């Protein structure tokens, strides 16, 4: 698959935004580390909402005809893409009410209710985003429950890292935040490693034989019928060289999970905020590389009609 940068940017940013909001609400509910000051909670909530908003806006950049984008809210009964749109829009009123009530410091029951609902919707939205990919029978590397597992765990991991930095700024007891981030780091890293292991040993699926119906002989493409590329080759033909893919895999895992642990260890020892910011940057650089690979390594079955032997 051709990796479109607007979609990579969108999934990483809005996933982290939703994860951040959910964890912020839970941390505030359970007063993690003694509870953060109100201003920190409020502005972190605003940051989460802005991240989600910027992500959503950037996702419209890959539309060829964005003037019809409003229609995407209509087919939520069947389409995961529509569900994602509806849910991410439904997230806003609850999240905004939560933050407004926080700012005004009134009606604690209503505040908790709207916060809990926004958190629930945030989880459902990340799941819908992942199901856009996981529901496609045409791309075997995506058609797996590991995809929603990875999106949920990576969204919470990256959001939790932001929350950890905020906790360090707020000078509360950071230990609970550190433990939470470490736990999420290991879950996300394991899910991603299982995914990487699984797609290299994916087994037999559709082949050029089932695509053409000639299952008793070797089949090879003589001519694709077009002189230059088509929409199909541009959209689905992209193939990442194997060596580059495995190199990028190592780099993305190191940036997303390895380096942040080292930097955070140092940052906590010296109470250095710049180092924890560097850890955060490293996480997001790693996730962009991970998302790029997620698209680049996916092989669509239509490639069988353009010369691939199997997908």
């Amino acid at each position, binding site marked *: 698959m051709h990796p479109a940068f607007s979609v990579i940017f969108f999934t990483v940013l809005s996933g982290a935004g939703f994860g951040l909001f959910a964890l912020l609400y839970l941390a505030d509910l359970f007063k993690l580390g003694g509870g953060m000051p109100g201003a920190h909670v409020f502005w972190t909530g605003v940051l989460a909402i802005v991240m989600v908003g910027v992500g959503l806006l950037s996702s419209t950049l890959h539309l*060829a005809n964005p003037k*019809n984008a409003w229609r995407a809210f209509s087919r939520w009964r069947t389409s995961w893409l529509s569900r994602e749109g509806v849910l991410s829009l439904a997230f806003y009123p609850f999240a905004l009410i939560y933050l407004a009530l926080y700012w005004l410091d009134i009606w604690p029951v209503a505040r908790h209710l709207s916060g809990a609902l926004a958190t629930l919707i945030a989880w459902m939205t990340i799941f819908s985003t992942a199901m856009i990919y996981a529901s496609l029978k045409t791309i075997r590397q995506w058609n797996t429950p590991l995809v929603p597992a990875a999106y949920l765990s990576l969204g919470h991991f990256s959001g939790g890292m932001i929350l950890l930095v905020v906790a360090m700024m707020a000078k509360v007891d950071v230990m609970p935040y550190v433990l939470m981030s470490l736990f999420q780091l290991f879950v996300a890293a394991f899910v991603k490693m299982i995914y990487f292991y699984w797609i290299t040993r994916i087994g037999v699926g559709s082949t050029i034989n089932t695509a053409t119906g000639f299952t008793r002989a070797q089949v090879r493409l003589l001519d694709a019928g077009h002189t230059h590329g088509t929409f199909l080759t541009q959209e689905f033909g992209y193939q990442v060289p194997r060596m580059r893919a495995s190199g990028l895999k190592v780099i993305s895992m190191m940036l997303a999970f390895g380096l942040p642990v080292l930097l955070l260890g140092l940052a906590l020892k010296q109470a250095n905020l710049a180092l924890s910011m560097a850890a955060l940057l490293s996480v997001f650089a790693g996730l962009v590389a991970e998302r790029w690979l997620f698209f680049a390594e996916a092989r669509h079955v239509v490639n069988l009609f353009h010369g691939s032997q199997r997908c």
Partner: protein
Amino acid sequence: MRLGLVIDLDVCVGCHACAVSCKQWNASGTTGALPDYQPYGAEPSGVWFNRIRHFEVGSYPNSKTVNFPMSCMHCEDADCVTVCPTGASYKRAEDGIVLIDQDKCMGCNYCSWACPYGARELDRSTGTMKKCTLCVDRIYDQNIPVEDRQPACVLTCPAHARMFGDFDDPNSEVSKVVREREGYMLLPELGYNPTNHYLPPRKHKPIPVEMSADKTGLAGKLKQFVNRMVKR
């Protein structure tokens, strides 16, 4: 009704006439112009509803070239319609034709991701997805003779490799020929239940490639002599 095509791989000569005729008809059809990008440039490309691939089946000397026209299969379980977030993609209840409402499409490409047959192509000039309409603006046209109420690709095929009809009617030409010649679907394991069927090449006697048998006997010698004398 379940309208669709049967493609006879035994007689398709791979001339691309169906694709050209499709482009000609649909360029002014219901889904509007089908643009070409750099048609006379170094990298010609464009929107087509119908594309012909050429495969080699088997390995030499027991091999065969098979020409393989492909367009929308008008699937029974069309995922391209289910995944469409705007409702632009739809499958008609009355005849099973899958169409795209050009006024609703937002060009997200998601339907093309869901299609395993590569039937959907984005028109980069309008920003909307386009696909085979089974010449819906032609097959119901009361102003043209009955025999012309067929898709452009079927009418133009010089080898009669394409047939159009109703698969729900067990006595239609397409149903009969699929039954008799063991017509099959592409990528059946994905479960899209495509309406279009393909007829496999018939079994032919192999054409002898060893000519040594001709060299023996008086008749063989005479043949060799004639072959030497006659310039072809």
